[in-house]
């Protein structure tokens, strides 16, 4: 899967090169119809340094226990784990102490809009600079608002951006649902050949309609998932809410090592949600 994606990216870059060569200005990626988006919800994170995220927009997940993935971190609502940085960004900070031969007291933050903002369909985007290093697992994702009534994966999950810190130039876009959850999620990776997601901000987005979910990095479409792609029922037909978090360790990413550097920050410039205009 990964190998295919690399070839895809390489091919894309080659084709870009040719296009540049021949002076073609037009984006020749997969064609999608022009969509007319209207902003309905956003957080620009313009608070002063050290402010907790806006409580009218975000709630916290608190605690540890692995979150179903054998993760190591304890999520807190402490401003040392989640706060605006005074430069227009939200910083979610993973912290840890090196004790003899391993990391201890690993804390981080996970914030969510459940009960505050939920929406079905539309464009969900965030401009993010990722953390890095083995065991670092930042994510920007959506979860079905009915998670507490129908449970996961029936509720559906749309991972707009997930990154493994030991591969700082690759992100994945994934959907999980009944019959295609966990390791069987429908996923595709997007890789930079010559830069990384932790050295600058990049825009991660999905555009979600009744029968498609399109994944974008910096407005480049790299994945389209339709009911025909999923190996189970299409459950993306009800409101979802937004989650931002930095997990540490676990069965998706592996564990932090002596070569991991703490603290690590995921900086989020903004999160914006649009609805398609009629």
């Amino acid at each position: 899967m990964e190998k295919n994606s690399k070839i895809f990216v390489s091919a894309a870059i080659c084709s870009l090169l040719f296009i540049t060569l021949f002076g073609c200005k037009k984006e020749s990626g997969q064609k999608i119809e022009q969509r007319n988006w209207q902003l309905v919800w956003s957080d620009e994170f313009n608070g002063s340094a050290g402010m907790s995220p806006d409580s009218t927009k975000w709630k916290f997940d608190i605690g540890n226990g692995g979150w179903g993935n054998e993760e190591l971190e304890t999520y807190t609502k402490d401003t040392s784990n989640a706060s605006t940085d005074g430069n227009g960004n939200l910083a979610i900070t993973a912290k840890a102490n090196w004790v003899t031969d391993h990391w201890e007291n690993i804390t981080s933050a996970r914030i969510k809009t459940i009960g505050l903002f939920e929406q079905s369909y539309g464009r969900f985007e965030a401009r993010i600079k990722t953390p890095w290093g083995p065991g670092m697992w930042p994510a920007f994702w959506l979860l079905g608002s009915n998670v507490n009534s129908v449970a996961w994966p029936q509720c559906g999950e749309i991972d707009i951006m997930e990154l493994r810190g030991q591969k700082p130039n690759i992100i994945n876009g994934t959907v999980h649902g009944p019959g295609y959850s966990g390791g069987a999620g429908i996923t595709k990776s997007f890789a930079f050949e010559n830069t990384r997601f932790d050295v600058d901000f990049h825009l991660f987005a999905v555009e979600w309609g009744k029968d498609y979910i399109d994944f974008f990095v910096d407005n480049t479409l790299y994945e389209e998932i339709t009911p025909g792609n999923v190996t189970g029922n299409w459950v993306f037909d009800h409101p979802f809410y937004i989650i931002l978090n930095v997990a540490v360790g676990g069965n998706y990413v592996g564990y932090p090592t002596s070569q991991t550097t703490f603290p690590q920050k995921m900086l989020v410039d903004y999160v914006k949600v649009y609805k398609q205009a009629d």
Partner: protein
Amino acid sequence: MKKLKSICSIAALVTILLMAVSCEKKLDGLKLATYPTTADVFIDGFSTGLYYAAYGTSKVTAFNVDYSVKYSGTCSMKFEVPDAGDPNGSYAGGVFGANPARDLSGYNVLTFWAKASQPATIVLVGFGNDMGTSKYQVSLANLQVNSNWVEYYIPIPDPSLLTQENGMFYYAAAPQNGRGYTFWIDELKFEKLGTIAHANFGIFNGHDSIVDNVETGEEFQISDFYATFNLPTGVDQKSNLSASYFTFTSSNPSVATVNDLGLVRVADTGSAVITAKVAGTGAKGSLTISVTGLKIAPTQPAPVPTIAGNKVISLFSNAYTNVKVDSWNTHWQFSTAENQNIQINGDDVIRYKKLNFVGIEFSSQPVDASAMATFHIDLWTPDTTANKTFKVKLIDFGPDGVYGGGDDSNSEISIGSPPLSTQNWISLNIPLSSFSGLSSKSHLAQLVLSGDLPDVYIDNVYFFNDGSTSPEPTTAAPVPTFNAANVLSVFSDSYTNVAGTNLNPNWGQTTVFSQVPIAGNNTLKYKGLNYQGIQLGSSQNVSAMSFLHLDYWSASSFSLNVFLISTGPVEKSYVLPVPTSGWAGVDIPLSSFSPVNLADVIQFKFVGNGDVYIDNIFFHK
């Protein structure tokens, strides 16, 4: 993948051609001093201009081109690390250089693939070694390799500096547990990768070093230069750098300056912080120095020795031919001493700074001082000497002539104030007999100087025997004049002494005790004193008395204390200044011996060194 890559290359080539065609103007006739920007070092053979030079002490045949094992293409670089003890060289190492030099400023990393015949740790790999000044070196220490091909990265700290670089690659590899192994390197080339990120730099391994009490004229070398880069694998990798990648700044150039290579020169009193940057990025670590000013040093040389050279075994003196001394500062564990060789009016002097103790070793040719009588050393200190001591220890390695073996012996003499003196040369002549713990003087191998004077200058360190017997008083102690009614006497020809007193109780001392007539007057002689007791015939109540009187004489003692002891024992010492000039008489207030019970005095004790004569020990009102 490979095919796509070559398509890309063709595309890039076309781009370059297009650019060349559209070039606006050529600077005909002007030839800029530029160097080739060739990126490849070894892909499938030596790149243009590449040469190999093995280290002279290595196994020079260790490197070969291998056409069977390779990561890609047709061949790889093979390095056969020899076994330990290989007569042709016991390690592999060398330099791959480029002639002409190359302009690497357009790249940011040297990359290669490597594998080995077994898991192994390559001592060092890097670039920037040109077998000359090697100004811009970068190296990775202890590179872990195994039997799988793995890609490695050596980032360039500041590519803009590498416009004329000869050193393409260098390595050193040693046997693993004594046995050789083989490793291969392939696709060795410089690249510009956007996936190398998060540069950090440091000096002193990132530590903030603080040095106090620095003297004008001192120099410090900034060291332990490093960079860390986050690799495409997400891990931070530390590399070791040469100083030239850094620019150094002194916060106070009038106090300390720092040159391009990180050498700090101290110019004046005050404080200064030395920091560094690489390509505008601040480096972790610093050097903060507090300068106290010029050192306080003797302005006059030590007195010139007058003893004939044939009566001397000299360790350090301009007046004599010195025997071989292996080290004037062995830097033994826990020693903080720093030594400097300085000259005062042409006379060589050794200075010890931060002296807690210093080991001086002459064991390669031990000194036979069995025919010598005295140890001499001249000493100067800027430090206050009140209540301070300076100690001289001699160590003899015994008949086997080597350290250990159960036949070593040592002895230490402690010198008080006086004779210690601030900012004056003092000449110490210590009878070798005073070193009572030395069972032999014929294999002296070490000298240890210690004490609580942190700053000393020494000169004229020698053993001698000028034939003079050890001096003794030629006149009797003065006859006391106190009225016997007011006296309680322990030892005096002038009074009735406490009956039954033991003047030489066996308390395990090594002191040679005797009573000698000096000009007809009975006198106590403590030869080679370490300690010596006096057991009174019965407990004495001296609470009606006011003073303890003593007469004493010593030309060779550098430490002497008298103790008064009551039942318990409860004891208290009193310092007797030594050496003396003729007989010294003291009347010590008995209050000085608190908390000794003056109603129940049972013993005396003398502790010190040298040969000491004592007379007229009595209490009086």
